[in-house]
């Protein structure tokens, strides 16, 4: 890996390479990739030169590699902008070298506890990263009580974004990752919840509450299986926006991307327009045809993200097949306990439409058992550990297929799909 070589030769290589580039750093537990793709579309539409890290290369090495590949041999940047998606733990380190112009923190949820530790530890990592980013304007999600609390301890200019109304009429049962006040540990009261612990919170004991966002979603006009239409209010001006991915979490990603674009000085029309045309990221509702089967790939990695996927899937109104591939390698999170925090029970609602639930991956047996306890009839649950056979199985039927792999399972699946169906650049 060029990244590793570069780092060992010159530990400050990243700092040197990043010096003359306008840097946007996107961090937070969920939504980093999709938000980055939305921001990227703004950069494309604005006609500026840029580079970004893709394919989940969001740790220190991957980021250094990306900078190195986009610089001349003497270390001069080839592009005006760098858009860096950054793992929360890596942000702490990357920010020592990269002097960002804009930092976006999307949210903090429980995620792969074996890697990141407890949720407050993730918050601490982001705080240190922001403290290192002395010159950055910081964009924070006002609706996340954890993320929004960061504003109290940093001198940076801050721009807040949020959603001013509950997105869903009904949402699935999920436990909150932050029920108690970050300051005094009293239970929050909510005027409304959008999902998870996001919403309009207030601590009745110490008064800590959701700040009023500078840029807000003020209406959700349509939210269906393919897209959302929303109204974004910024600086007193209202704009309609279409987001070409379904799901409430993508509404957050959309308003986050618009906020970053505003901070970086791009016109609001460009930023809002980008939401309707951007290409969704690697395994984020990505759609392709395999044989006769219309297939969507949705990466799963933690309970909050997976619950949002189920919020979407349990509203699908046509026959479909689900595939879950659960691995427990380091990059997936070695601890798979989180699948028991996901409301797979919500699939009972659409059980008649389920043509089958296929499970695969290293921990397929545990996943099969999870579906059994979620009330999916055992005859619909099938364990197929061999990926070749798995792919043959779901491409041989004609209902749409939703594949939910963890990270390394997705990489393995993509390799086989590329070979089998001749998809080129399936890695980009």
């Amino acid at each position, binding site marked *: 890996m060029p990244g590793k070589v570069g780092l060992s030769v010159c530990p400050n290589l990243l700092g040197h390479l990043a010096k003359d580039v306008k840097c946007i750093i996107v961090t937070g537990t969920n939504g980093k990739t999709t938000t980055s793709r939305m921001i990227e579309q703004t950069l494309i539409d604005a006609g500026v030169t840029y580079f970004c890290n893709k394919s989940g290369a969001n740790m220190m090495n991957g980021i250094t590699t990306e900078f190195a590949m986009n610089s001349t041999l003497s270390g001069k940047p080839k592009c005006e902008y760098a858009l860096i998606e950054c793992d929360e733990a890596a942000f702490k380190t990357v920010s020592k070298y990269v002097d960002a112009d804009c930092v976006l923190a999307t949210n903090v949820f429980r995620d792969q*506890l074996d890697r990141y530790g407890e949720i*407050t530890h993730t918050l601490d990592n982001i705080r240190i990263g922001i403290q290192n980013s002395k010159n950055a304007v910081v964009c924070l999600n006002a609706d996340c009580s954890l993320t929004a609390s960061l504003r109290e301890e940093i001198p940076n200019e801050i721009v807040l974004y949020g959603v001013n109304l509950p997105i869903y009429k009904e949402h699935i049962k999920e436990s909150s990752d932050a*029920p108690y006040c970050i300051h005094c540990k009293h239970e929050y009261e909510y005027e409304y919840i959008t999902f998870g612990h996001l919403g309009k919170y207030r601590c009745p004991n110490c008064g800590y509450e959701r700040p009023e966002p500078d840029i807000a979603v003020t209406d959700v006009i349509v939210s269906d299986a393919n897209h959302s239409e929303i109204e974004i209010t910024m600086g007193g001006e209202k704009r309609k926006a279409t987001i070409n991915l379904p799901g409430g979490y993508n509404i957050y990603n959309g308003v986050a991307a618009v906020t970053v674009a505003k901070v970086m000085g791009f016109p609001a029309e460009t930023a809002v327009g980008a939401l309707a045309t951007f290409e969704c990221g690697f395994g984020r509702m990505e759609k392709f045809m395999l044989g006769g089967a219309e297939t969507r790939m949705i990466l799963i990695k933690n309970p909050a993200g997976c619950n949002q996927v189920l919020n979407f899937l349990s509203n699908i109104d046509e026959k479909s097949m689900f595939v879950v591939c659960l691995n427990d390698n380091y990059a997936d999170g070695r*601890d798979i306990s989180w699948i028991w925090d996901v409301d797979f029970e919500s699939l009972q609602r659409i059980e008649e439409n389920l043509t089958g639930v296929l499970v695969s991956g290293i921990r397929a047996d545990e996943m099969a058992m*999870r579906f059994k306890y979620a009330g999916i009839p055992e005859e619909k*649950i099938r364990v197929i550990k061999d990926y070749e056979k798995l792919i043959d199985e779901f491409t041989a039927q004609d209902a749409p297929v939703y594949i939910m792999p963890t990270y390394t399972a997705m990489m393995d699946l993509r390799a086989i799909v590329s070979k089998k169906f001749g998809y080129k650049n399936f890695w980009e």
Partner: protein
Amino acid sequence: MENYTINICHLYPDLLNLYGDNGNIICMKSRLEKRGISCNVTGLSVGDKLEADKFDLFFIGGGQDFEQDVLLKDADLNKKDEIKRAMEAGKVFLCICGGYQILGKYYKTWDGKELEFMGLIDFYTEGHNERMIGNYMFECDALGGDYIVGFENHSGKTFLGDGINPIGKVVTGGGNNGIDGMEGLHYKNVFGAYCHGPMLPKNPKFCDLLLQTALDVKYGEGTVTLAPIDDTLENNAHNYMVNRLSK
């Protein structure tokens, strides 16, 4: 047929729910209902008074440090005496990770501070900067040495007092402290373990042991016997981990 019911008390479900502990509740309820036995689950959290007589089985899960002092204050005020009474009366408890630690006397942090716990059973825990983390396996004494598989993730090292028995012996992994080869705690019908998250689904024999014990305590030994059920998927998940950890 007579109607049998097990009432489960889930203590602090909103605070001690860090690692998918809910899987244990889902599992117990489902395995009772498959045998035609009713099951009610009641969550009790901060501010709720515990009346132990209403329940047959208690579950306490693992949690984050952040929430521990909210909880300890409440436990002292609203629950501790009743928990003690229920334990001594032989009621069944399953306590995981943080929920296991708080039954002990104290937690000593790595920089020497002592955090007082409920002190219901003679053992204590010391914080260390190195975590014991990963899939692990132990022989469970109450199952005649059969294996229990799971995932541990703790920096606390637990040391049992004299005469307090462990739940079993570690085969692979750290267990209580990574030193004495013991895992968890077994006192009367109280079971403590570091096996966090969905411990019971992939250890169905252990789940049934808890349920059968709770039925025996409530209705008298030999009154209700759990009928065998199809555990193909459960055994597959169990055996996969046993094989993997035996290598």
